[in-house]
């Protein structure tokens, strides 16, 4: 397969189509309106459905309807828009429907800014909306990975009959990189006839619903959900980068992991034994694997680099049970840390905790 140079946002749109999702509901918001712009042109070409909704609230409910009708469906938005979708996402989880959400995170809170950020980590990993629901939250780090994970998100959503969220940021959505759409095999859609609203011909009527009048039934349903969310641990994905001999490891995901990688490469030349543990699924969080590294006596310290006030930081602290000091470096509000300042931070942290060279 030959590579195409493509903007992240457009690649997300194309990836959905390649994955067999030819329906898309959205509301424009920077820095990802290009997904909508791209699909408004492309979907009619493939006989698909493009609707610009009146709001993110409505877009999420259109997704709810389409997911209930058993078609592959995606919406994309950015931080404030995702907040408006939280009720809808809770309903979709509560009705056990597959749907793909993409959040291109921007600086917050409130109107904030439109530049890259990772400040929606809590929202993506702890729910955002009401009730006991969770979803696979996946954080790619390049346009290529974004394509791959969007394509994988559909079968994953169907496997668990649950929303899946791909979490990016303005950098990943706005930059162009070469992409190869061929490297993920599209999967056929699961059979939906047993539960979707396709018309009750030759079968009993189906119902899409999240209401339970009987609290015992709702409780039972919640235990079922819990088991499902625990089963999602099978999907835990992470990358280990130069972890073999590291005396300090950095935890970073998405865009910051690229910066950390560059920094580590440079620091390795200076003799610093630093590795990177990059969560790819940020929910479920790769707690077990990370804990093992945290318990490794060779490792003297842990560092977290994030574009937020320290959200993943909490998961890391829990994961390593604070058995090693956890240092933290962040840029926020739309600023991507640059390799220089990252290196400086890493050097300091490394030396502070007695790393050898």
């Amino acid at each position, binding site marked *: 397969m030959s590579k195409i140079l493509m903007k992240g946002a457009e690649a997300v749109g194309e990836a959905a189509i390649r994955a067999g999702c030819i329906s898309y509901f959205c509301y424009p918001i920077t820095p990802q309106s290009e997904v909508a712009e791209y699909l408004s042109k492309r979907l009619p070409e493939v006989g698909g459905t493009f609707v610009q909704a009146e709001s993110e*609230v409505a877009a999420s409910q259109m997704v709810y309807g389409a997911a209930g009708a058993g078609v592959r469906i995606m919406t994309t938005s950015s931080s404030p828009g995702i907040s408006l979708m939280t009720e809808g996402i809770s309903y979709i989880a509560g009705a056990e429907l597959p749907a793909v959400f993409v959040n291109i995170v921007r600086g917050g809170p409130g109107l904030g800014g439109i530049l890259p950020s990772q400040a929606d980590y809590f929202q993506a990993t702890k729910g955002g909306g009401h009730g006991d629901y969770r979803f696979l939250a996946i954080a790619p780090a390049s346009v290529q990975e974004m394509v791959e994970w969007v394509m994988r998100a559909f079968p994953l959503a169907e496997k668990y009959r649950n929303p899946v969220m791909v979490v990016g940021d303005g950098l990943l959505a706005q930059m162009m990189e070469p992409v190869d759409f061929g490297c993920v095999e599209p999967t056929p859609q699961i059979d939906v006839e047993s539960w979707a609203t396709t*018309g009750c011909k030759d079968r009993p009527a189906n119902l899409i619903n999240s209401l339970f009048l009987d609290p015992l039934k709702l409780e039972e349903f919640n235990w079922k959900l819990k088991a499902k969310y625990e089963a999602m641990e099978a999907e835990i994905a992470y990358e280990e980068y130069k972890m073999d001999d590291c005396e300090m490891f950095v935890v970073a995901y998405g865009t910051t992991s690229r910066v950390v990688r560059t920094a580590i490469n440079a620091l390795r030349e200076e003799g610093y034994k630093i590795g990177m543990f990059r969560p790819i699924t940020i929910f479920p969080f790769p707690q077990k694997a990370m804990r093992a590294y945290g318990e490794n006596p060779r490792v003297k310290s842990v560092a977290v680099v994030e574009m937020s006030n320290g959200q993943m930081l909490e998961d890391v602290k829990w994961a390593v049970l604070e058995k090693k000091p956890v240092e933290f470096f962040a840029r926020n509000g739309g600023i991507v840390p640059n390799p220089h300042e990252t290196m400086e931070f890493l050097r300091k942290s490394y030396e502070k905790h007695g790393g050898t060279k």
Partner: protein
Amino acid sequence: MKTIFSRPRAMTETITHYCPGCTHGTAHRLVAEVIDELGLRESTVGVAPVGCSVLLYNYMDTDMHQAAHGRAPAVATGIKRTRPNLTVYTYQGDGDLASIGMAEIIHAANRGEKITVVFINNAIYGMTGGQMAPTTMPGQRTTTSPAGRDVDNVGYPIRVAELLSTLRTPSYVVRGSLHTPHNIIEAKKAIRQAFQYQVDGTCFSFVELLSICPTNWGITPVKSNEWLEKNMLPYYPLGVYKTPEEN
């Protein structure tokens, strides 16, 4: 012996949870009868709201989708756009449709979604215990307008049929009532016409039905019919507000 009136096929036998006399049950039956008559039971998806009729799905023997409060038109859009061969209708109360769901109903109508909306206007929030709705009558006492709706403070009731009929996109907009046999018969005709327009792929169709809520109005069902006639009818005139042919 030939049965000339009984439960429509598109309804289940389940006894509703509605209060005695509540015309939600009547409206359900009309919709089901129309679905039967047009032969749509196996290709229909009903979208239930949040409101007293949230359990609509228990009473209809068709595929059903329960929506978030006010968002049924968006949910219906999601279904109809991706499965255009289905007949999709929403069934919504006045709190649901005219308050929290105002943006969704206007935009679904304006986009010309080929769906049917059955709108039960009982001038109150039934399910949550009788709070004021956008459709509550001037002076009407509710649990959140204990001194009666004060139009100087909260404005006049919203007439949804009138509002939607001003949109330029072709549609079928009609208001009926459920308080007398005659009106119920007329209401059913309107519902049938509405579904017919959808089946023909013509346009968005909207049927508002004036309805009673004896429980929260605090009077008997029979008195409720009278109250509706006296108070609601003059403010909410019945009739066809818009047809797609007009355009």
